């Protein structure tokens, strides 16, 4: 891309391409795993958005007997109450992904904001926040979630808030680390010397420079949150019935496995597939932005 003309001192030296041209060039060079990931993610989003139009039946309607086998009428059979498995599978994409995205967004906003503040302000703000986060992270996330859920009960709001707050600690750590790398640069000091306020420095000087690692981290955090919520739902402590959710669908239909019926593996597989896809894309993204050679 660099088209170095003989350096006449007063000429800018690099030919510019627009953002879209660059993005397209990168996409063309992406490895097959990244393409796989992007296609899968697109499919999931499609299913989540258009669920009511794609699913043959509704999410909660009882349409047949319990545990009916795969047939032309019910492509994946029915679940333990007689609802269509395929429809619930599709609707669950909305619920599970939607809740995971919401939770990640809250976690990210909270952790990112505090991380930025910590890095830019330094001093005792940094110390206090740092110690607090250290302590919160000393308890494994799943365990802590279980403790809190046992006390306040497993409602949706509780679930989202608890996971968001616990996960924000990781976001805090990462944001603070990458923001610190930027904060020590001279242009941040230059801004301070001009008397720029804290919110200016945070949003206009530091934030634009840490977007690539933050974006990658959003993907990783989504995966983690998504898996945690599924795990909690699997344990019966996450998303509550009758809302369709992949984790609880596995649990509800687990007995089928003893009979060699792999239907309950499908929602589990759906979780795995999305997580793998996001991981592939994040992997590629990190590879590009950190410029690591293999």
């Amino acid at each position, binding site marked *: 891309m660099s088209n170095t003309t003989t350096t006449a001192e007063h000429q800018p030296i690099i030919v510019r391409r627009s953002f879209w041209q660059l993005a397209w060039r990168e996409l063309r060079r992406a490895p097959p*795993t990244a393409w796989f990931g992007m296609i899968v993610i697109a499919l999931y989003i499609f299913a989540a958005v258009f669920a009511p139009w794609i699913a043959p039946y509704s999410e909660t309607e009882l349409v047949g007997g319990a545990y009916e086998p795969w047939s032309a009428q019910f492509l994946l059979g029915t679940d333990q109450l007689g609802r269509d498995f395929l429809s619930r599978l599709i609707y669950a994409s909305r619920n599970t992904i939607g809740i995971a995205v919401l939770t990640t967004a809250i976690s990210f906003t909270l952790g990112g904001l505090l991380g930025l503040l910590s890095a830019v302000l330094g001093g005792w703000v940094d110390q206090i926040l740092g110690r607090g986060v*250290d*302590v*919160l992270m*000393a*308890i*494994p*996330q*799943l*365990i*802590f979630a*279980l*403790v*809190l*859920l*046992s*006390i*306040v*009960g497993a409602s949706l709001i509780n679930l989202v808030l608890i996971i968001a707050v616990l996960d924000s600690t990781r976001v805090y750590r990462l944001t603070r680390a990458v923001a610190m790398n930027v904060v020590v640069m001279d242009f941040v000091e230059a801004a301070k010397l001009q008397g720029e306020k804290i919110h200016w420095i945070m949003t206009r000087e530091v934030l634009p420079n840490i977007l690539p690692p933050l974006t990658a981290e959003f993907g990783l955090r989504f*995966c983690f949150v998504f*898996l945690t919520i*599924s*795990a909690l739902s*699997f*344990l*019966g*402590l996450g998303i509550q019935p009758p809302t369709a959710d992949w*984790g609880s669908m*596995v649990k509800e239909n*687990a007995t089928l*496995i*003893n*009979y*060699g019926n*792999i239907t*309950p*593996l499908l929602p*589990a*597989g759906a*979780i*795995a597939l999305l*997580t*793998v896809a*996001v*991981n*592939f894309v994040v*992997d590629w993204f990190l590879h590009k932005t950190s410029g690591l050679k*293999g």
Partner: protein
Amino acid sequence: MNAIVRTILQRLGLGVVTLFVVSMIISLAMAMLPSDFAQSILGQAATPDTVKAFREEIGLDRSPVIRYVDWVGGIVTGDFGMSFAGAGSLSGNRRPVIDLIQPRLMNTLFLASMTAIVAVPLALVLGMLAALYRNSLFDRTVNVVTLTAVSSPEFFLAYVLMVFFVSQWHIFPSLAKVDANTAFFERVYRCALPSLTLLLIIVAQMMRMTRAAIINLLSSPYIEMARLKGIAPRQIIFRHALPNAWAPIANVIALNLAYLVVGVVIVEAVFVYPGIGKLMVDSVQRKDLPVVQGCALIFAATYILLNLAADIVSIVTNPRLLHPR
């Protein structure tokens, strides 16, 4: 040597303090209990007197500070309090929490050790090979496989293994039923599937991290210098890379053993294995708070201990601390 001893003691102290703060948080969480908690535990049939007695017993009316001090005081002497289970019934057959936890803890430790003994060396070797033969077909295949394993929920892998090993090939039982009397090899047999599930996840994760750590190490300037002195690759790995690798590798191991602590919860649930993870999940569902708190404290202590161990290894292998100016 003084600098090392001092630093280690500092870390130990920090660990203890962290554990105390964690216990405070766990205890303080009780303050979020809804006001009708006692009633909901004992059930609709309980008389107002029973409810009142119960409330007094679990200290819902006392200040959080006193409740905490009582609890910690008990823990230090080995008394984790009494389980709520059976609190409302007339037979009142309530058991000390410690009696519930202890055998379960042993079971979990057995499962975890069984997994770790195989997982750690396997992952380290695979990780190093992947780093040394970077970008080869081996490395790239391994990368995709491990990424898939790491991205899958534990219960997915567990059930997949169950489908193959139990339903199709009938090698292992689907329920890992063990108790105090199970003989050693019988135990190993029953635990094979849960252990295998955990193994897959841990090896995948540890392998990726080891690979990254070694690659990072191999790009150091002193490795290039050794190469330019004409030293062969194998010698470079053993004499130059390895002595500097202890700290990052110890970190990787500790992080993953800590992950094992969490993964064990799901796996025990799937295979109905009587370990501390299953106990905690059951107790959460029953709102048996003393047990939940006891289990949480033990998990946290393990976590802190493992991080401490990693810290200590990196201190003890740091040449700047071993040989101060």
